[in-house]
């Protein structure tokens, strides 16, 4: 009896102690928030008659502090509860194996459902021009995400300048059309080749570098390309960009409102409608994205894909097994760049106008965020992440600055919460006997 009471008392004491801790942490966090916010949130610089002046914004400051206090309190309580529950539960097995066959089946079903939905989308009642345009945008990012996924997810090379290849594709097509009068379909493979060539040119010198150095150098290359596009006015039009880029044709049949025998509508005996081109562009990017996906999936079975994954897991081991690291990395760079180039050509023909503003570092960061959020290596994850990200951006399109604010925070939060992304299993592409997906948290990371 006595002992029982003592135990209850002790537990109550720890609980009060814990509550005290949580409260103390929350107060500290609020104090830090006060310090952080006092100059930047609490005061606003506004133009005055001479120079600037500051006006106080106490409401905003104290609102933010209150949010931080409550948030820290809630987080503390949540962590304490989870810790308490974890102490009661049996310890989790050290290696958690995803039940064989389960995750892939689920993934396949979800992927198939998404694909069917994507195919049927333009004919779903209620899908107007706006919806199809948005879906086209999402698919562009899905394709870019899948392209970058080859470099980052499969080969494990962090590329912060992926948008450079997107720009090479877009400007490549625009310039080909302008100077050599090459149509979209002829230009498409050429832009892919061009971007791949740039991938090799930029990739070759940097391949000796370690992961984070490589990231910074690719970022520098991306910026160099953007600065050149911005300043080479005679070729690229500089900040004014290039306009009047020819729109795509349906295998030679132009989309025209005039109708007539030589146009898409006339050939198929349809009523001319601006929607035709929109739908055609949608299917075009869907086909390009699916091509990217297909090539990736096939390449993963291919020795080169296995070499990429080997390199990602452990560069030294891969080298010891006789892989030519340079060749492996270069093919990853070139393949990823090629799909970026395709997407760029599509972007140029869809917009009809391009300028360096579309190819900033933020764009690279966005594509990278899609890949990272998607789980680096998972095709379905990347597609889901692109839908969530671009859809979310579209939902909050009126809050331009705030959405970037949230985007930055989300990147941090994802890294802290699930560094391996949403779909965090790594299914080996080839397996001996039984196929087992190992939760990615248990997969060792090579130096790369």
């Amino acid at each position, binding site marked *: 009896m006595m002992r029982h009471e003592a135990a209850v008392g002790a537990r109550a004491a720890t609980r009060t102690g814990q509550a005290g801790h949580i409260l103390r942490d929350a107060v500290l966090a609020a104090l830090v928030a006060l*310090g952080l916010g006092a100059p*930047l949130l609490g005061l606003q610089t506004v133009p005055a008659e001479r*120079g600037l002046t500051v006006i106080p914004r106490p409401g905003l400051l104290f609102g933010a502090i209150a949010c931080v206090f409550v948030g820290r309190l809630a987080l503390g309580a949540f962590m304490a509860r989870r810790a308490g529950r974890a102490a009661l539960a049996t310890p989790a097995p050290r290696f958690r194996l995803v039940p064989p066959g389960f995750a892939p089946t689920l993934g396949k079903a979800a992927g198939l459902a998404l694909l069917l939905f994507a195919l049927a989308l333009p004919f779903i009642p209620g899908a107007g021009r706006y919806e199809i345009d948005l879906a086209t945008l999402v698919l562009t990012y899905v394709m870019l995400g899948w392209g970058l996924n080859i470099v980052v997810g499969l080969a494990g090379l962090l590329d912060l300048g992926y948008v450079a290849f997107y720009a090479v594709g877009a400007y490549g097509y625009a310039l080909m059309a302008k100077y050599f009068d090459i149509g979209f379909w002829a230009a498409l493979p050429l832009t892919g080749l061009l971007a791949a060539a740039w991938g090799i040119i930029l990739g070759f010198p*940097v391949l000796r570098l370690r992961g984070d150095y490589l990231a910074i150098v690719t970022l520098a290359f991306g910026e160099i390309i953007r600065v050149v596009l911005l300043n080479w006015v005679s070729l690229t039009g500089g900040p004014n960009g290039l306009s009047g880029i020819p729109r795509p044709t349906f295998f030679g049949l132009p989309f025209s409102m005039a109708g007539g025998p030589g146009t898409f509508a006339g050939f198929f005996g349809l009523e001319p409608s601006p929607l035709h081109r929109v739908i055609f562009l949608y299917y075009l990017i869907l086909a390009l994205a699916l091509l990217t996906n297909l090539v990736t999936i096939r390449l993963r079975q291919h020795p080169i894909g296995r070499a990429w994954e080997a390199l990602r897991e452990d560069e030294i081991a891969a080298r010891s097994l006789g892989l030519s690291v340079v060749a492996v990395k270069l093919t990853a760079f070139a393949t990823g760049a090629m799909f970026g180039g395709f997407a760029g050509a599509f972007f140029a023909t869809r917009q009809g106008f391009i300028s360096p503003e579309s190819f900033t570092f933020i764009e690279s*960061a966005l594509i990278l965020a899609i890949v990272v959020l998607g789980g680096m290596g998972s095709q379905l994850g990347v597609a889901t992440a692109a839908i969530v990200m671009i859809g979310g951006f579209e939902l909050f399109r009126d809050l331009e600055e705030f959405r*970037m604010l949230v985007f930055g925070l989300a990147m941090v939060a994802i890294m802290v919460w699930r*560094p391996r992304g949403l779909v965090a299993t790594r299914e080996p592409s080839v397996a001996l006997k039984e196929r087992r997906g190992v939760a990615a948290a248990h997969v060792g990371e090579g130096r790369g």
Partner: protein
Amino acid sequence: MDYALQQLVNGLTLGMIYGLIAIGYTMVYGIIGMINFAHGDIFMVGAFVSLIGFLLLGLAGISFVPLALVLVLVFAMGFTALWGYTVERIAYRPLRGSFRLAPLISAIGMSIFLQNFVQVTQGARVKPMEPLVTGGLVLRSTGSIEVTISWMQILIIVTTLVMLTVFTLLIARTSLGRAMRACEQDRRMAALLGIDTDRTISLTFVIGAALAAVAGLMYLLYYGVIDFYIGFIAGIKAFTAAVLGGIGSLPGAVLGALLIGLIETFWSAYLSVQYKDVAAFSILAITLIFLPSGLLGRNEVEKV
């Protein structure tokens, strides 16, 4: 000749500002081996906090320039250091022991957050400030061309040198500096010997941020305009400086920064202003490719 001399003065001043930022990169890289991508934006926050400090002093009616400078320096260093601490605590500490690229991606997120936070709270327009210190010394005067060094430039160079001396002594002489060097060499061993490594790393970020705040203040005084985007380019250039000098080495960072400042100034003066950023980016790429350990860095031997 005189034109070149003038560019030399300007380049050194610019290099000093980059140097203050570069130290933050090099210290953090030295101690936890990550590129603190948000450091350039910490510098930008420092510039904004300095601006607000000056405006507050203006409202308070303090017009004695040296006093205002010292007060704003302390103000900016304090608040920016708190930002540096918080960024490390929220975005980097939970990722220690995670896979290698996780902190870098988290840092990119932080960088985007800081830029947009300042944009949302302080507005996207450029913020001008009237020059606080005017006039200067004429070093040489031949006919029409005068080579001058403004008081502003002298102030920047002297402040930077003082700060460098203080922080070099801090690292060389104090127990904190010893702990930092120990963590740099072998974090696990340092922890076994009773060093609070988390605290040491936090302090590294705090020191880096404080120096970035000084750089922000100097940038504000020198150029007289700031906006929320200055951190990105300045950050990359300072990082380039740190790499050029040999990342992990403090004198290397300053040397690299002076070189970057000079190269950029001479490039703008003699070649092309539009492509001055290309110069810095190219130096970064070339250094990493041909001289990965930098001018004063140690060669890293990778053990399997």
